[in-house]
């Protein structure tokens, strides 16, 4: 993972999230407090300012910087969660080894684990983890199977999409929607949606 790819990813994700303002906002208005779009766009705007300073950093330094930036700009629930994800990934990259598909898959899993730890949450609670956990699993499977990066990217896009749709029928047991009981059913989780968008965007960069 080179600096150029990280920067390109930030730019692409920034654009996609901005284009989904209305959708993300209305999802969080339905079962949360309506600020999810504002929160992540605040974080992404700050990352955009940071791009130049990422140029010369190692991957783990970059991911840590991203983590700390998101941590101090997003706030809310998603701030520490996204930050934990990138911290987890950074830690994984610290143990020097070859840049293989497995390494990426493991790093992604490490990020997801760290996020889950921070959120004290797991699959099926109507959160971002309903996208992230299946994607992490699929990613490892793809690496084990020795798929190409394009094959992997295509697969992950599909998995992320399934994950986000699955949140629709779930009861929420974490986050703001937890108070809603049955009334959360029928609504997609905003955090799951933003994760799906981010994954799709980065995968599409790989597919280009």
């Amino acid at each position, binding site marked *: 993972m080179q600096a150029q790819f990280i920067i390109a990813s930030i730019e692409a994700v920034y654009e996609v999230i901005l284009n989904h303002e209305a959708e993300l906002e209305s999802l969080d208005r339905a079962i949360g407090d*309506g600020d999810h779009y*504002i929160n992540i766009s605040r974080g992404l705007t700050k990352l955009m300012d940071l791009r130049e300073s990422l140029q010369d950093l190692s991957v783990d330094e970059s991911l840590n910087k991203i983590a700390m930036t998101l941590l101090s700009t997003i706030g809310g629930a998603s*701030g520490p969660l996204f*930050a934990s994800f990138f911290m987890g990934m950074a830690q994984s990259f610290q143990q020097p080894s070859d840049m293989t598909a497995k390494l990426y898959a493991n790093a992604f899993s490490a990020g997801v684990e760290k996020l889950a730890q921070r959120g004290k949450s797991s699959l099926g609670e109507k959160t971002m983890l309903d996208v992230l956990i299946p994607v992490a699993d699929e990613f490892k499977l793809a690496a084990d199977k020795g798929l190409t990066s394009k094959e992997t990217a295509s697969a992950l896009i599909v998995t992320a999409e399934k994950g986000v749709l699955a949140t629709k029928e779930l009861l929420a047991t974490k986050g*703001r929607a937890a*108070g809603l*009981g049955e009334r959360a059913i029928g609504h997609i989780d905003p955090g799951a949606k933003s994760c799906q968008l981010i994954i799709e965007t980065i995968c599409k960069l790989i597919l280009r």
Partner: protein
Amino acid sequence: MKKFINNVDDILVESLKGFATAHKDLVSLHLEPIFLTRKVPSMNKVALISGGGSGHEPLHTGYLGHGMLDAVCPGHVFTSPTPDQMLAAADKVNTEKGILFIVKNYAGDVMNFEMAAEMLPYEVATVLVTDDCAAGDVTAGRGVAGTIIVEKCVGSLAETGANLQACKALGDKVNQRTASMGVALSSCTVPAAGRPTFSLADNEVEMGVGIHGEAGHSRETLRSANEMAAEMLEHILSTLSPTANSEILVLVNGFGNTPLMELYLIYNSVTELLAAKGLKIARSLVGNYTTALDMAGASITLCLLDDEIKQHWDSAVHTPALRWD
């Protein structure tokens, strides 16, 4: 959306500047990252730090000062503050007695304060406020208006030089003995969103609403003040199970757009309903103490007093929003 603003992005800082200037005898504002402290730092006491999303004023900034908080980290409107704010605040107010975070139970607040606690080189404990009983479980509840009772009582104890464990223990005890429930008659409008968070029909209320306009217990038909107060009290009393001779502190809290006239009318309902159950109101507070921007509605909070809590509730306090001696 109609609000007094210059630029949505500047609301927080401009408002905090106004607050800090208006109360310059009591508080200091620090920027980048944003936090506020007492004007005169306290020595040799547990430092109480709270914070949370803005838009609940006077919570928490209004409770900075003698007998309550030492520092406050305000987040963006309805968004929890970030760990860098808490780290900077802690550096400023830490004494050798350690730091107590008072955190309202929201995923965002909990995680951000948790990360700050993990990162801090000082002794840190946390009191999690969970008084909202709309979901029926006092330990899993959101933190709402009962927060100020926790902040007031722990603030009083900290002032005596009590240690961190004692302060945390009192905070946990007050939280365990406090339960709240709110009802919204209208939505609030988050400035950055520009439109109401939810919508209610002309005869609808959101029973058990959160202080960010989160949905609560159920959508219900608007009924009389007495009936709505009775429903809220039922949830609260079944959560707290007071005994016949319990002494109670009642807080009737407005969310912003409910006139004081109506808050006192609700308080009147509460006094009658509690009297009918043989329960004794020993202390009371009626007003806008934990708001939700411009939401119309109110919450009722009961705290089961004991001698210790009563003493700390009564002790002198000198902050922008709460003052007595």
